């Protein structure tokens, strides 16, 4: 039995507990033994992206201390996973086991595809689904080919969704444009951030999205905030909630 340490990003823990539960359920569904270490809080990304390296460093250390001994670490967020994999060198370089920790930390869909080698997920989801390709998942973890890069298309996310019965993945006019969340950017550059979000939503509306999903709840929180304010009939769900089959 594969054992994983579950990392639930702070804002999911506090604001979207059902996404954490769905992640747990998906993993347990595939016979993974999940442990959620209770001392965890945040990977440090908000501080790191604000440039406050000194405030991010202790959080990177805390993460390292808590998770370094698990055979795998799984996290339902591309952005937080990328923080560990691509940016922890800035804070922890040279620590024993850091390289391993970076290699064994996975975003949920990536874990299902690359480690569990799943190609198909049983379940039914008879809706028109719009997939939001969150940028860090796309361009930092390479969960799919970004539209800027040439070569054969691939995705570690959409095949999982497409294997569900009854689902239709909509075609967007801009398949991987940023939603404008960007952490503190959402507040520091509020006007641009909201404009970007509204443009994404308009694209989904035109493509007939009924359910908007993605691997990062942070992007979805921003989009959902705009959708609810505008009273648009689009439901927002984290991909774990869809894959859990609730």
């Amino acid at each position, binding site marked *: 039995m594969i054992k994983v340490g579950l990392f639930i990003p*702070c804002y*999911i*823990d*506090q*604001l*979207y*507990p059902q996404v*954490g*539960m769905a992640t*747990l359920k998906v993993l347990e569904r595939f016979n993974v033994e999940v442990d*959620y270490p*209770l001392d*965890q*809080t*945040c990977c440090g990304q*908000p*501080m*790191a*992206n*604000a*440039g*406050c*390296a000194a*405030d*991010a460093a202790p*959080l990177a250390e*805390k993460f390292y201390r808590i998770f370094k001994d698990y055979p795998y670490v799984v996290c339902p967020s591309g952005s937080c996973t990328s923080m560990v994999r691509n*940016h922890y060198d800035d804070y922890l370089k040279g620590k024993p086991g850091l390289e391993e920790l970076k290699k064994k930390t996975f975003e949920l869909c990536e874990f299902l595809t690359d480690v569990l080698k799943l190609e198909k997920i049983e379940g039914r989801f008879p809706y028109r689904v719009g997939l939001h390709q969150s*940028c*860090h998942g796309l*361009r930092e973890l390479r969960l799919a080919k*970004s539209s*800027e*890069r*040439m070569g054969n298309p691939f995705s570690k996310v959409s095949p999982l969704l497409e294997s569900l019965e009854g689902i239709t993945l909509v075609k967007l006019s*801009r398949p991987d444009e*940023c939603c*404008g*969340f*960007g*952490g*503190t*950017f*959402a*507040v*520091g*550059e*509020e*006007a*641009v951030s*909201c*404009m*970007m*979000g509204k*443009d994404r939503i308009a694209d989904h509306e035109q493509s007939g999205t009924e359910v908007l999903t993605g691997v990062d709840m942070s992007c979805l*929180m921003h989009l959902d*905030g*705009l959708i*609810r*304010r505008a009273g648009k009939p689009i439901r927002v769900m984290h991909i774990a909630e869809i894959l859990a089959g609730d």
Partner: protein
Amino acid sequence: MDHSTRAAQFIRNEARVHWHDQALWYVRVKRDKMAQSVPEWENLREIAAQIKAHTMSRLPDYLEMFEENATRLGAKVHWAVDAREHNETVYQILKNHGVQRVVKSKSMLTEECHLNPFLEARGIEVVDTDLGERIVQLAQEPPSHIVLPAIHKKKEEIGELFHRYLHTEKGASDPTYLTESARGHLREKFLKADAGITGVNFAIAETGGLVICTNEGNADMGTSLPPLHIACMGFEKLIPRARDLGVFLRLLARSATGQPITTYSAHFHGPRPGGELHIVIVDNGRSQILQKPEFRRTLSCIRCGACMNTCPVYRRSGGHSYDSVVPGPIGSILSPAQDPQRYYSLPFASSLCGSCTDVCPVKIDLHHQLLAWRKELVLQGLIPFSKRLTMKVVGWVFQNTWAYEGTGRLVRWIVPKLPRSVLYNRWNVWGKQRELPPFPKESFREMYRKRKVQGSEARNRK
């Protein structure tokens, strides 16, 4: 004023933002199509990046090699430490030749050095001959994009401008008509000019030659009529061999405008018979950038502008919101290197989506450098105290799990009880256009704990 304030001003006109966004996205789509036509695209980017990295690692040798070869071919090479020396050097050459009228083809370096006002103040007429540059010159505005200088202007506005200065028909805004009238106007300037100033796209060390790329042919026209040609270049324009151009010319126009190659890719080796060629090699802060390992890759930039076209922030905030000679992602790295105090907000004018990094033909890790600049600015103490304090406090809370849990519980308990008018106050920037996320009764960890207890109770009962 910071970027976000200027961006917010630009965004007030939503229709215009969409028009601007669409115009640039159209260029991005053309670029994608052109890149797709090159099966080895990603390999080519890698090779281009390596050639540039190699050149930087041997820069002094190559610069001397270039000077030697260029001189052998009959060019005169000048060196300028900063913008002031660059402008003085150009002015001296012009003065020695009694030049009164100059035609200039697009050069971001001369923009960077503010050469036009310098020469104008000394009684020399400078006419920018690239159509987009000429438009912004007439409008007395800086370019808003390095390849498409007038991309922010509507054709009606250009029609208005041309009516005033070039006496086109009032209300006329047809691009073909306006371009034709600019053609007439600029031909006259070309024919009357005493000297031509150009930028440089590539300088070849092994041959001492210069390559200048345009679509209009203005660099060629401006240097084949008057006998004096002054070419101004930052030292990072150097490449080792002529055949490296095979790599760069395949990437440049495809990335810039989605063309297979620019219409004119001119190779200058020495002056024209009976003429003079002066080459001004400029530092102006570049050697400072070279000394910083995390930022030196920006010097590989070939100024294609692809990072601007793809940047979702640039497209929606407009080039002028950056208030710097080079806007967009690459400008947000170059500008703070020049003046961190003035440009401290630019590295934050990005959602760090990384599209710029993936589109860059020389593989500059733009979004990582933007992040590195944020750290640098915090270290230099240029970030508002309130922001640093917030991060300090939040960081402390995250370090202490009990404080994190307590704060979370408190916030989730209080927020749902607050009336909407209190919750959506004017300090709630998130809530200006967005609803707040739900504040559930239980956090995940509380649910998890309960489930674990229930699970073990169930096991115990068995």
